[in-house]
C-alpha cells in the first residue's frame, strides 16, 4: 500500500514538473522559431540585394525602382512595408533599406549593393 502511494506521488510530482518544463519549452520554442524566421528573412533579403547585378553604365536608382515595381523583392511570407535607396556622403546610391513585417513587429534590413554607378558629380 505504501509503495503504491509512493509511486502515485512520484508520478504526480514528475507530471507536474514535466508539464511546467514542457510549457516553458513550448514558449522557448515559439520564440526561437520566431528568431530563426527573422534571421532567415533577413538573410534572404540580404542575398536578394547582393544578387542585384546592374551593368555599371546604367542608372542604378532607375534600375532598382524598376526592380521594385516589377516585384523583384516579393517573397512568399515576407510582408514588405517599404524599400528605400540609401546614399553615402557623396550622394551615391550604395545600399538598400528594406522594411518588413513579422508578427506585429517591423524590422529593417540594410544591405550594401554589390554594384556601383560610375557616373555623377562626384567624379
Amino acid at each position, binding site marked *: 500500500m505504501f*509503495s*503504491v502511494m*509512493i*509511486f502515485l506521488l*512520484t*508520478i504526480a510530482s*514528475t507530471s507536474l514538473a*514535466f508539464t511546467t*518544463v*514542457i510549457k516553458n*519549452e513550448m514558449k*522557448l*520554442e515559439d520564440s*526561437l*522559431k520566431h*528568431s*530563426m524566421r527573422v*534571421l*532567415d528573412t533577413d*538573410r534572404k533579403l540580404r542575398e536578394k540585394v*547582393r544578387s542585384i*547585378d546592374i551593368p*555599371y*553604365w*546604367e*542608372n542604378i536608382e*532607375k534600375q532598382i525602382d524598376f526592380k521594385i515595381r516589377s516585384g523583384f523583392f516579393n517573397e512568399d511570407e515576407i510582408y514588405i512595408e517599404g524599400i528605400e535607396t540609401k546614399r553615402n556622403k557623396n550622394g551615391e546610391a550604395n545600399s538598400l533599406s528594406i522594411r518588413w513585417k513579422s508578427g506585429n513587429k517591423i524590422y529593417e534590413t540594410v544591405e*550594401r549593393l*554589390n*554594384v*556601383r554607378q*560610375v*557616373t*555623377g*558629380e562626384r*567624379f
Partner: protein
Amino acid sequence: MKDSSSGFSSVYALTVIFILLVIMMSVSLYFGTEIKKAERIESLYEREAIADSVILNVLEDFQDLIVAEFDFVQTEELLKIRRKYESYKLEISDVSTGINKSFLSEKVKAGLETEKLVEVKGEDIIVSYGWINEKYAEESFIAALHEEHRMEDLFPLVCSFPFNNVNFMEEEHIEAVLKYFEIKESKKKAYEIVIKQDYGISEEQLLGILKCKKEAKVLDFLGVKTSFWELKMEVADLKINAVIAAVPDKENQRKVNKYILIKKNIKRN
C-alpha cells in the same frame, strides 16, 4: 516473502522516466539544431564582413598603381599586391583589353574585322568592361545613355581613356587596330610591341614604335594602362570576385586619377 506490487510499481516508474528522458532528449536535440543553424548564419555574417574588409584593403593598395607609368604582368605595385594577399589566392587580371562589342559601333567593328578576330583568337578576346569613347560608339547607344544620365554626369563612363593596354593585347588584335588607322607596317609593328610585352611598354616606347604623335587617333585604342581589373580571391571559405576600375584624370584622360570598386560578388564555397 516479497510483495509483488513493489516490483510492479518500479517497472512503471522506470518506463515513465524512460519516456520522459526520450522526450527531453528530442527537445534538446531540436534546440541544438536550431542553435547550430543560428550560429551558422552568424558565422556567415562574420565571414562576409571579413571578406568585405579584405576587398577594401586590396582596393586601398591598388591606389599605389596610380603612379605606375604602365601596367604589365611584372609591374612592381601589382607584384606587391599579389605577394601581400598570396594567402587568399589572389588572382588579378585585365578584363578590359580586348574587343568590347557593346561599346563599338557596327562601322568600327567592321573596320576592325572583329568577327575574324574572334574566329582566330576565340571568345576569350571579347571583354565586357571598359570606358566608352563617344567617337567610336553607336549613336543610339550614346543617345540612350543621355536619357539615363545627365549630360554633365557622364564622366568617367564616357571618356577618352584608351580601350586597350598594349601590354596585354594579342598580336592579331594590335595589327587589326593599326590597319584600321592605316598605320604603315602594321604587322611588323604589332610584332615589335608583342615581343616587348614581357618587359613592359611605356607610352614613350609605344609612340616610338608606332612613329606617331601623342594626338594620333590610334592612341584612343592603344594605351599602356589597364582600365578594368578583375580580382579573384578566397577569404574565410568564401569565393570573392570583384572588379576595380581606373578612373581617369579629367584633365589628362590617359592618366589614372584613382581606382574604384565597381562590382563585388561574394559566394559560399
